[in-house]
């Protein structure tokens, strides 16, 4: 059987034989090509400067695989790039593991691979090693992607979820809940007026600018699954501090807020894929905010709250009408499979 001429992915493509080689050399390599991947060895061999490295991994099983503003491919690259950047590192190399369900249209596969190459280019990282498996129909859902990556941490940078201090300001780099709502509406076939698009984006350039500005940054974290609310709870307990958020300052698109209202979701718990939370000393907050706002992906950034020494481990929200409520960790899932 000539698998190359078929218009869907077949088990042959993952069998390690001619079809596998053709898939890699004709469809994947030309798009991902770089000096380390081109070597064609079992693993990537690359030079590293002295110092500290950050290493992160994430698997992507989002359903649907295509959605407004992106697909599982760029999501998988941006996600790992961002996880490395949130360690205060400059992402350099990533690996890609593909698990494909037999029957995936070749066109879909190509579009996903193309998006991954574009995303890697945009982030300035190299895809240096990878693996492709094909499983029988029903044993996976279209395509699952694992990406892992490494990055170098510049000297003097010390960013961690345990470093938030009372008095620090909490900055969110843009509107919340865009990704989760884009996925939900795509999956459920809900149609709303307005442009509900994923915010999936690489944040490493924004982080690099912040860290090389000389500003002190205590914590960086991307509020993906569980949203801003859950992420801040994690930081509050890691650092043993309390937090107060201000509802009036929370950036959210009107249409996203509208969908949340309609479906009874709290946007504080909805996933983001192109936003970061930066916790910085008060005296540097406005400078860091300006730096974030100057980035392509940070135009709607805002200071959304502050770190306190009250009620350690807890996050509170001052509501627009002057009330106060607890923002607890998300329990269970509001939405299934969003990344």
């Amino acid at each position, binding site marked *: 059987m000539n698998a190359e001429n078929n218009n869907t992915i077949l088990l042959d493509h993952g069998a390690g034989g001619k079809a596998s080689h053709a898939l890699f050399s004709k469809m994947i390599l030309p798009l991902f090509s770089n000096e380390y991947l081109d070597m064609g060895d079992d693993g990537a061999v690359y030079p590293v400067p002295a110092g500290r490295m950050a290493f992160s991994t994430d698997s992507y099983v989002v359903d649907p695989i295509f959605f407004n503003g992106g697909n599982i491919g760029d999501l998988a690259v941006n996600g790992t790039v961002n996880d490395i950047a949130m360690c205060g590192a400059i992402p350099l190399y990533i690996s890609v593991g593909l698990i494909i369900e037999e029957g995936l249209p070749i066109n879909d596969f190509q579009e996903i691979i193309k998006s991954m190459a574009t995303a890697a280019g945009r982030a300035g990282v190299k895809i240096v090693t990878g693996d492709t498996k094909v499983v029988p129909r029903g044993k996976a859902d279209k395509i699952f992607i694992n990406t892992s990556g490494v990055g170098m941490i510049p000297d003097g940078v010390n960013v961690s979820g345990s470093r938030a201090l009372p008095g620090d300001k909490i900055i969110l780099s843009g509107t919340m809940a865009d990704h989760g709502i884009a996925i939900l509406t795509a999956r*459920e076939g*809900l149609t709303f007026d307005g442009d509900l698009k994923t915010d999936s984006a690489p944040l490493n350039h924004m982080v690099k600018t912040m860290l090389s500005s000389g500003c002190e940054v205590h914590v960086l974290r991307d509020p993906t699954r569980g949203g801003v609310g859950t992420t801040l709870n994690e930081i509050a307990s890691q650092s043993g501090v309390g937090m107060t958020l201000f509802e*009036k300052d929370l950036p959210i698109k009107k249409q996203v807020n509208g969908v949340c209202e309609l*479906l*009874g979701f*709290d946007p504080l718990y909805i996933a983001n894929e192109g936003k970061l939370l930066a916790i910085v000393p008060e005296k540097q907050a406005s400078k860091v905010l300006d730096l974030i706002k100057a980035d392509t992906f940070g135009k709607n950034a805002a200071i959304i709250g502050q770190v306190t020494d009250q009620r350690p481990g807890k996050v509170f*929200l*001052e*509501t*627009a*009408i*002057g*009330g*106060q*409520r*607890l923002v*607890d960790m998300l*329990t*269970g899932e509001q939405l299934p499979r969003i990344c």
Partner: protein
Amino acid sequence: MGLTYLEKFRDPSLAKNLVAAIHKESRHPLRLMEVCGTHTMAIFRHGIRNILPETITLLSGPGCPVCVTAQKDIDAFVAVSRQPDVIVTTFGDLMRVPGSGTTLAGQKGAGADVRMVYSVFDAVTIARQNPEKQVVFCAVGFETTIPTIAAAVLMAAKEKVTNFSIYGANKLTPPALAALMTTPGVSIDGFILPGHVSVITGVDAYRSVFETHKVPSVITGFEPIDILHAVLMLVRQNESGVPALENAYPRAVRQSGNPKAREVMHQVFTVCDAAWRGIGLIKNSGMELKPDFKVFDAGARFELNLTDVAEPKGCACGEILMGLKTPVACALYKKVCTPMTPVGPCMVSSEGACAAYYNYG
């Protein structure tokens, strides 16, 4: 920039004025019950409890449909999902509610075909797409949802979607309020009546309960200004000693409600007695399929062999739903019963009083 229509109902300065008026005018301690779970959620989300004076205690009532669904009905949904070639369809918040044993989410994990839908019509569509399967919709909800369920049954009848059925556990609001008022120990100085339910029932549906018990009652919407306005009206009624049945939600609720929706509802369903979780049987508080539509009754379609299992010991959900206890007074609250390991229904539904206390407290 001008405020949008919705933003006006969240206007901080308007809220401030209302709160100031409530503080000024409220002299005597008042126990006000928000009947509806959506009100409970809104009150917590906007942090309304801690801006009200100490004189005002807000109690959460029996208006969270998931919370009041009898354990036996949940057991029935689970039992249906265990039948061969069945797709169970449900609103999302019912998924994690425990019956006497497992939950629908648990059944899904174990391999049952349980699907979350946003509308009962999605269930009819699934039935159309899967003619070889039985598609059962777990019909839970108050007057707000019953008309759409009735419309779905009518559609299934018209289009001969014979593999569609519903397992009915729908409930009516006014009979529950009447039952509440005659329960020993219950003391309520005012009802914040549900907005969405009243869109269907109208103001008149509460007239008989009001005339009998003369409890100050205000129908209102779900924005902070709506709720604060209703609280102020209830304070004024109490302080003046002149109880009334008032509508603070005229932008959505008409005196006679939505007669067309009620007509559809009564075309398909007839009033019956219903079991409320934690409360027990309330006369004429449920709706069952009329004989003409009995063919759509999942209860009759499957042999479920359900047994009565006692509700969990120590769980105060019943007393909480009647305003006799607050969640914090329950011995299980936060200790054994959490949103991850809910014992009673008030902890599992996002609109349940216990979950609201836990998540936003």
